[in-house]
């Protein structure tokens, strides 16, 4: 089995990693880049705990992506979501509104919600449901998660308005 050296760009950092064709983006992020926030669940596309964001900001299931296809393409994982000294509004809302129990699904759900809000800052009920349907929680169900996402939207809209009024 021959390995090929690729450059993974994770959360803005570049990593030179040797990968074999059969290694998934999930395996390489967890086992070689050693960022274990991205979780390994069903490994077959059905649970969403392995969700990361691709270069276009869309949610990608890293368990169904071949690492070799991600040479030089930026990826965002849960470790890249918080700011310097502040959590992302989606993270804050998950904490504040109790959308976390065991936490196994949390990175995937936060990446899913962030991918949605990066694309559409003001999603309606249907768009929220559509996005969240691909990432499952077996502890809380989706009710608290949806509350947190709605509150995150409110906070982000308020932040944007405050920035505007400061003429930034």
């Amino acid at each position, binding site marked *: *089995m021959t390995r090929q050296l690729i450059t993974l760009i994770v959360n803005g950092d570049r990593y030179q990693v040797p990968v*074999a*064709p*059969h*290694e*998934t983006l999930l395996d390489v992020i967890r086992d070689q880049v050693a960022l274990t926030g991205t979780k390994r669940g069903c*490994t*077959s*596309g*059905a649970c*969403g705990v392995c*969700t990361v964001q*691709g270069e276009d900001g*869309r*949610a*990608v*299931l890293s368990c*169904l*992506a*071949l690492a*070799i*296809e991600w040479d030089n393409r930026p990826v965002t994982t849960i470790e890249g979501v918080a700011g310097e000294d502040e959590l992302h509004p989606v993270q804050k809302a998950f904490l504040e509104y109790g959308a976390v129990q065991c936490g196994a699904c949390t990175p995937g759900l936060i990446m*899913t919600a962030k991918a949605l809000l990066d694309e559409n800052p003001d999603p309606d009920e249907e768009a929220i*449901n*559509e*996005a*969240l*349907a*691909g*990432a499952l929680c077996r502890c809380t169900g989706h009710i608290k998660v949806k509350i947190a996402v709605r509150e995150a939207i409110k906070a982000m809209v308020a932040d944007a308005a405050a920035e505007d009024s400061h003429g930034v």
Partner: protein
Amino acid sequence: MQLPLFEYHRPASLDEALATLGTAGSSLAVLGGGTDLLINLKLRLERPRALLSVRELPELAGVSVDAAGTLRIGAGERLTDLATHPLLVARYPGLAQAIRAVGSRHVRNMATLGGNLCLPTRCWYTNQSEGWRGSQLPCWKTEGQVCHVIKTASNCRAIHSADSVPALIALDARLLLRSSQGERELPLADFYRDDGIENNVLAPGELVIAVLVPPARLRSVFVKAAARTGLDYGYATLAGALGGSNRAPKSLLLVAGSVGTMPMVLHQSARIILADGLTEASIEAAADAARDDLGEVTNLFTPPGYKKRLVRGLVRRVLNELRRQKLPAAD
């Protein structure tokens, strides 16, 4: 689950892809978005020596309409882009609905149309890990001689459940295939076979290049009944496309999916509507007639008799929605 070892090729051009495919034969698997193929490899349902990635080929990209009004959708297009494509949403609403019904948003961000068109059939026995399968006798699909679902079946009855397909067949779509020997075009309906194992007529060395939808102003609808509509395969789906008015319909195709080894066209139900127009009474009669059209269905994830009752309801829903829908605007 881990992937088995394989080599990986990413050809730079379609010609290079077809040449590689022509010489390697069945030891090579074509990789689109990988949302189904990679799972089947993890389950050890296929054992190719190498994967050939076709998703980025420029010849497989693009959504366009030619001078005659034929819509062309490249096989490498992502389902998320198609589900929200303004042209599809406005002119082919049933197709946009069907594409949006595939898996989850996550899956559609990765999946291609070509992969959906070539989706293998599924069954609760085969789509399991190798160890799980090993605990029972092999079935028709895994080189045995039984069916664990329909005991009397003399061939594999696994279910074809690619959601874009009924919607495209209802629009009378054609498929463009190419190999290093040349190009051929065929009606999408003729691409599928009544066999759970070899469920399409893609020849060795051939790639799906694009889907072509002939010009026509049609109303179109797709509905899906599933355990969780945001993620699951359908128990049954139904697509309908209607030309003409409610009183004097000129054409109607009703196509059911997820009921058997291939999509099923409901001829009887359509004939009733074409003769009587869309009325409350004719819709009821068409829904009742669906049962005869369906013939043998595979109640694989559902109790006996369930799918026929379900399709009856879906026919009623599709026809009622078609009746209410406005004809898409001309260009």
